[in-house]
């Protein structure tokens, strides 16, 4: 889990309003937080989703969808609007009834259980705080339903407020809070009763960019400290990559691919996944006679050669580079192109080039002095190099 250093991210994002928000301390070496961790620690349970079918009218929204979430995992459902991710979340929470399927939480079937018995915490897109209650009563609400004693309620609400860094704001009215504070109240309310699992429906979409980035880190840290099984819905691929243990990319009611973010990025299995996560160049190639060909050039690759037929080579802009030799050497593939435009972006530049077949590709590189010295101008012919190990092929559909 050291893909992204937490400190790094926070410092790069630390601008303007974010400075006002205190940073979460790492939990493990702090005795006080460990105590909190014990008092508000959702029992992490695995979720087993299988064979979910959902139709609205005649339209199939989810088709035979199956998915396993490990105990304590942070899983993100990522997809465009209409892909069925929110419907799946609603089915998990019990607000929408599936036509078929099974949902097991820690081995217990909950698909036919009414929402109020499911013991699932949920953070809504617009927070859904109760406007007629103050912060304290909002957070105490789930405890009140569970007939927790007044003294214990006060104690747990206090701890939850502390956990989301809203200590002392219990008497505030909801309409006196900023967007970020409302977000935290919603979060505290969703975890204060130690739910079996926590669901989040695009909880950060209403926040401005810098606050959103800050909250991503904070949510991520909170998850690490409390270890609750979390299902998170978003359409923002960057957010999904930042926060998740695994991402399930959804499209048209199905899961296209589910894997760790770095795998999804490096080895997308379908054109949809490649296009949805990160920027991609698609270059048509053909597989014949046990090799893959781009026009008359044989593509060197480390992965297995697919079945004969047309395929698309997925190339990330940063995996392309400008090479001097027109003839490939070693494990580098070379594709000739003509520069259309070069956009200077400070730390990096983007080069838009046209292949011989007229296809547009993008190349991105950092502005190192050796690269800058050889930067081509518009109209200049260039050679684009791709390492054999970066070649990823997907079906051309």
């Amino acid at each position, binding site marked *: 889990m050291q893909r992204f250093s937490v400190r790094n991210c926070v410092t790069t994002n630390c601008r303007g309003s974010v400075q006002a928000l205190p940073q979460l301390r790492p939990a493990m070496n702090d005795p006080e937080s460990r105590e909190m961790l014990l008092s508000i620690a959702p029992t992490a349970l695995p979720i087993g989703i299988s064979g979910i079918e959902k139709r609205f009218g005649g339209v199939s929204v989810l088709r035979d969808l199956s998915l396993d979430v490990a105990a304590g995992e942070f899983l993100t459902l990522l997809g465009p609007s209409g892909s069925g991710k929110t419907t799946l979340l609603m089915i998990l929470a019990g607000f929408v009834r599936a036509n078929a399927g099974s949902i097991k939480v820690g081995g217990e079937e909950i698909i036919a259980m009414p929402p109020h018995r499911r013991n699932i915490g949920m953070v809504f897109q617009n927070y859904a705080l109760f*406007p007629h209650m103050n912060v304290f009563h909002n957070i105490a609400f*789930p405890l009140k339903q569970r007939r927790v004693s007044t003294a214990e309620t006060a104690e747990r609400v206090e701890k939850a407020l502390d956990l989301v860094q809203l200590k002392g704001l219990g008497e505030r009215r909801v309409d006196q809070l900023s967007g970020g504070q409302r977000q935290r109240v919603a979060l505290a309310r969703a975890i204060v009763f130690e739910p079996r699992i926590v669901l989040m429906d695009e909880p950060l979409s209403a926040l401005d960019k810098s606050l959103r980035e800050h909250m991503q880190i904070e949510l991520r840290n909170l998850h690490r400290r409390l270890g609750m099984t979390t299902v998170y819905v978003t359409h923002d691929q960057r957010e999904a990559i930042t926060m998740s243990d695994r991402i399930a990319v959804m499209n048209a009611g199905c899961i296209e691919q589910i894997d760790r973010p770095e795998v999804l990025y490096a080895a997308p299995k379908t054109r949809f996944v490649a296009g949805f996560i990160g920027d991609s160049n698609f270059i048509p190639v053909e597989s014949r006679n046990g090799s893959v060909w781009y026009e008359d050039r044989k593509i060197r690759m480390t992965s297995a050669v697919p079945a004969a037929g047309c395929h698309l080579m997925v190339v990330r802009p940063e995996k392309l580079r400008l090479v001097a030799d027109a003839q490939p050497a070693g494990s580098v593939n070379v594709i000739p192109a003509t520069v259309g435009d070069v956009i200077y972006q400070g730390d990096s530049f983007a080069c838009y080039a046209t292949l011989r077949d007229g296809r547009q590709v993008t190349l991105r590189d950092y502005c190192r002095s050796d690269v800058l010295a050889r930067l081509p101008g518009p109209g200049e012919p260039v050679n684009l190099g791709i390492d054999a190990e970066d070649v990823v092929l997907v079906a051309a559909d």
Partner: protein
Amino acid sequence: MSMQSAILPHAGARTLNADALHADARRETFGLLALLSPGLLLVFAVIIVPIGWLFWLSLFDETGSLSASNYARFFQQPSYIKTFLTTFKVAFAVTGACVVLGYPLAYMLSQLPRRAASICLILVILPFWTSVLVRTYAWLVILQRKGLINSWLIDLGVISQPLPLANNFAGVIIGMTHIMLPFLVLPLYASMKTIDIDCLRAGMNLGASPAATFRQIFFPLSLPGLASGVVIVFVLCLGFFVTPALMGGGKVIMWAMRIEQTTSLYSNWGAGAALGVVLLAVTLALLGLFQWLLGARATGVWSSR
């Protein structure tokens, strides 16, 4: 600062352009007042002046001399106190009946799919298109001794003697409730529609049963709409004339009927005006009380929207 005072040495110009800015602010205030003046004038002409005139009239007896006799009548004639109590009794009963019938109706409307809701809403509003007089007579036809309800019940053998439903207090309440119901349902429905469905989902998600969610979340959030509906219905009831006159069988005399009676009996506008002033004062006092009782809670929700 020191540099500034060096450049502008006289005391009057201590702050740069202060006078000009002050003058500009004053101009803007007058400009806004000028824009408001048609509205203010209208309010003055159609509300302040007539009420003031009403109050002025109420101070004169039939010989045209200044006297408190129009007000003294309340204490000399016990029938006025009776009418007053009857008026409030009817207003409370009708408001209560409207709440009991209107709340579930508004709730149902707010939960229906959009198309069905708009059709049902038309049905709710439909009675507005017929006159109050016609609707009251229709109720008379339905409720009287040989009316629809009594003949059905007798034919079915449920009762042997007709129920007294018209020409009494019950008749007035039934007739007025029907007329007042939309005034309660419409604001209530509007406020229920603004309740965020996610708030209700959150309630259930957090462990509240549907009934508990309704009680702890939906109902408190619908209170502002209920409050405005109740105030509208209550105030309209206080001034009602046609239905009690026709459905009350002459035994349920409400304030508006009394104003009419008194004005013609004493041949003096002041006599009726005094009744109007008293009703206005008591109504305002009640509304104040209402605001005080429900206001804090209701406005708490209002301001958050």
